[in-house]
């Protein structure tokens, strides 16, 4: 069986990995010159389903809690399992209580515990939440390594491919083009996220830190080599243009609130990614003839792509065993499968 995947972001690459493991012949067409997609390249890389559960439905926790294991198995050495620290300025500590009440999997820390975990934050916060089971990775390194691995095991990449790269001769085509499908896929919208990269020797962190604020929650993820990613805004637009002055100011303000030494850090990069999202902010795949569309990862690409990739790969290979004659039509006729809310099979059409 031959499968063409359009898009070499985290959705396309994880799917290629799962299909390759099932001995499917995979090729990837990517319009850019490198792997990494758009939103994936600017991702935080936090594998933090318990933190995300604060504002996301149970599905995100259920599908995301195995993500760290998947990445660890696929790319040994990339996953850093040091948990997530959640802090709030003294006047906003009520936000910590609210955050803790909306999710699970965390412990309350006092000032001493915080110092033990992150010595550079000593004396800055009296209370914190610690999500012990969470992990993180460097998205760009992970994407690059996954690309290299896939290449080595026989996946063929076509970079700088035309958007309508020919799918002749393929049994299945999987569209993993993310935000590119906005305007074509019904209900798909963009949620703009801006980030920046700071470089400083004056602060050292060993795990992602989330700073709660009633209006401007933010995270800082240490990338090693004195670098810190600060993110990310959430704006209801698919405008991919450069970071706005307001967003830059808010992100820098928050970094300063976490530690004043960030004032002397160098801003070495700013970036904007557009997260593709459906109205429920959950990913889904849609089957339409031999085409499968995988999209809507919102801000959970690295967290949820492995799980969805497993489902799509299972679907593709189960078809190989006998369902080939079945035709799925009608994107609008969505039926929710009760046990897996994110999967929307489109099987109301006539069988061939």
């Amino acid at each position, binding site marked *: 069986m031959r499968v063409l995947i359009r898009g070499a972001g985290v959705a396309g690459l994880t799917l290629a990995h799962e299909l390759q493991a099932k001995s499917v012949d995979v090729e990837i067409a990517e319009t850019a010159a490198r792997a990494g997609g758009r939103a994936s390249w600017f991702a935080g890389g936090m594998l933090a389903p318990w933190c995300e559960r604060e504002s996301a439905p149970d599905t995100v926790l259920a599908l995301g809690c195995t993500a760290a294991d998947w990445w660890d198995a696929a790319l040994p050495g990339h996953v850093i399992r040091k948990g997530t620290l959640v802090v709030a300025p003294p006047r906003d500590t009520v936000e910590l209580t609210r955050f803790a009440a909306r999710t699970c999997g965390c412990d309350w820390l006092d000032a001493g515990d915080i110092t033990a975990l992150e010595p550079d934050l000593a004396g800055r916060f009296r209370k914190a939440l610690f999500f012990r089971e969470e992990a993180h990775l460097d998205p760009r390194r992970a994407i690059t390594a996954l690309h290299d691995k896939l290449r080595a095991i026989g996946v063929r990449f076509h970079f700088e491919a035309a958007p309508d790269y020919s799918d002749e001769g393929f049994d299945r085509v999987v569209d993993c083009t993310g935000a590119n499908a*906005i305007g074509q896929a019904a209900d798909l919208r963009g949620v703009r996220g801006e980030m920046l990269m700071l470089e400083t020797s004056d602060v050292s962190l060993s795990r992602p830190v989330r700073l709660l604020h009633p209006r401007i929650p933010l995270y800082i993820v240490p990338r090693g080599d004195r670098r810190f990613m600060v993110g990310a805004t959430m704006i209801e637009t*698919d405008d991919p243009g450069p970071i706005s002055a307001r967003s830059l100011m808010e992100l820098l303000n928050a970094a300063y609130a976490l530690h004043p030494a960030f004032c002397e850090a160098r801003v070495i990069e700013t970036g904007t990614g557009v997260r593709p999202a459906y109205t429920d*902010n959950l990913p889904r795949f849609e089957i339409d003839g031999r085409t499968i569309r995988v999209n809507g990862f919102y801000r959970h690409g690295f967290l949820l792509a492995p799980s969805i990739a497993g489902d799509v790969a299972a679907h593709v290979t189960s078809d190989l065993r006998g369902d080939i004659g079945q035709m799925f039509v009608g994107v609008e006729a969505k039926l929710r499968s009760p046990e897996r809310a994110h999967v929307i099979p489109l099987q109301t059409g006539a069988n061939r």
Partner: protein
Amino acid sequence: MLELYGISVASRLLLGTARYPSPAILSEAVRASRTDIVTVSLRRETAGSRTGSVFFELIRTLGVKVLPNTAGCHTVSEAVLTAKMARDVFATDWIKLEVIGNHDTLQPDVFALVEAARILNGEGFKVFPYTTDDLVVAERLMEAGCQVLMPWCAPIGSAMGPINLPALRSMRAHFPDVPLIVDAGIGRPSHAAIVMELGFDAVLLNTAVAGAADPAAMAAAFTGAIEAGRVAFQAGLLEPRDMAVPSTPVIGKAVFS
């Protein structure tokens, strides 16, 4: 029925649309609240993009009247510009006017607010000004052409509920015929009931619903509280007394003390 700039509305809850976990949950909350009016913030970068239109399309499909707001504006010119963009995007002359004086507390800059209200009313907008409970500012807003006033009852997002009841009472007394909508500071349904019992005409809130664990259920809870407060106000509330008053006559009963 409550009448706002000539439009009759059945629901006395105006619901904000920001910061819900997802647009789908926002839709559920709006339905559960049975509100007639939602407020939508128009950030400048949102206008004109494809997604802005997806999100705004979702708001339009809710089937309720849209009250665009100028949240995040700090100057008169910014607020006026945003109001004009909102008029184009949502095809309405209604505008919830916010001019923020302090980035941190989001307290309104009442001087700029009056000025912006004067300009916008002059250009045919129907202005809903987000203001403090200051009576003189309220009078200036009326002079500037506003026919609705929206005082806070506590700082935005504070969830403190009415922190200055005498000020709210005196506002109601000074403007008996002006629609007064409490905007900002409501944290719980009981807060909303309190201001409705004072005779306020409606309540506008966002975070208290959007930030709840179950926004749709909380929206329904607010609707119930607001209706209860309104009916109680109309039914005539007892004034508190300093001592007990028996509810059954005591004359003719044996007295043992």
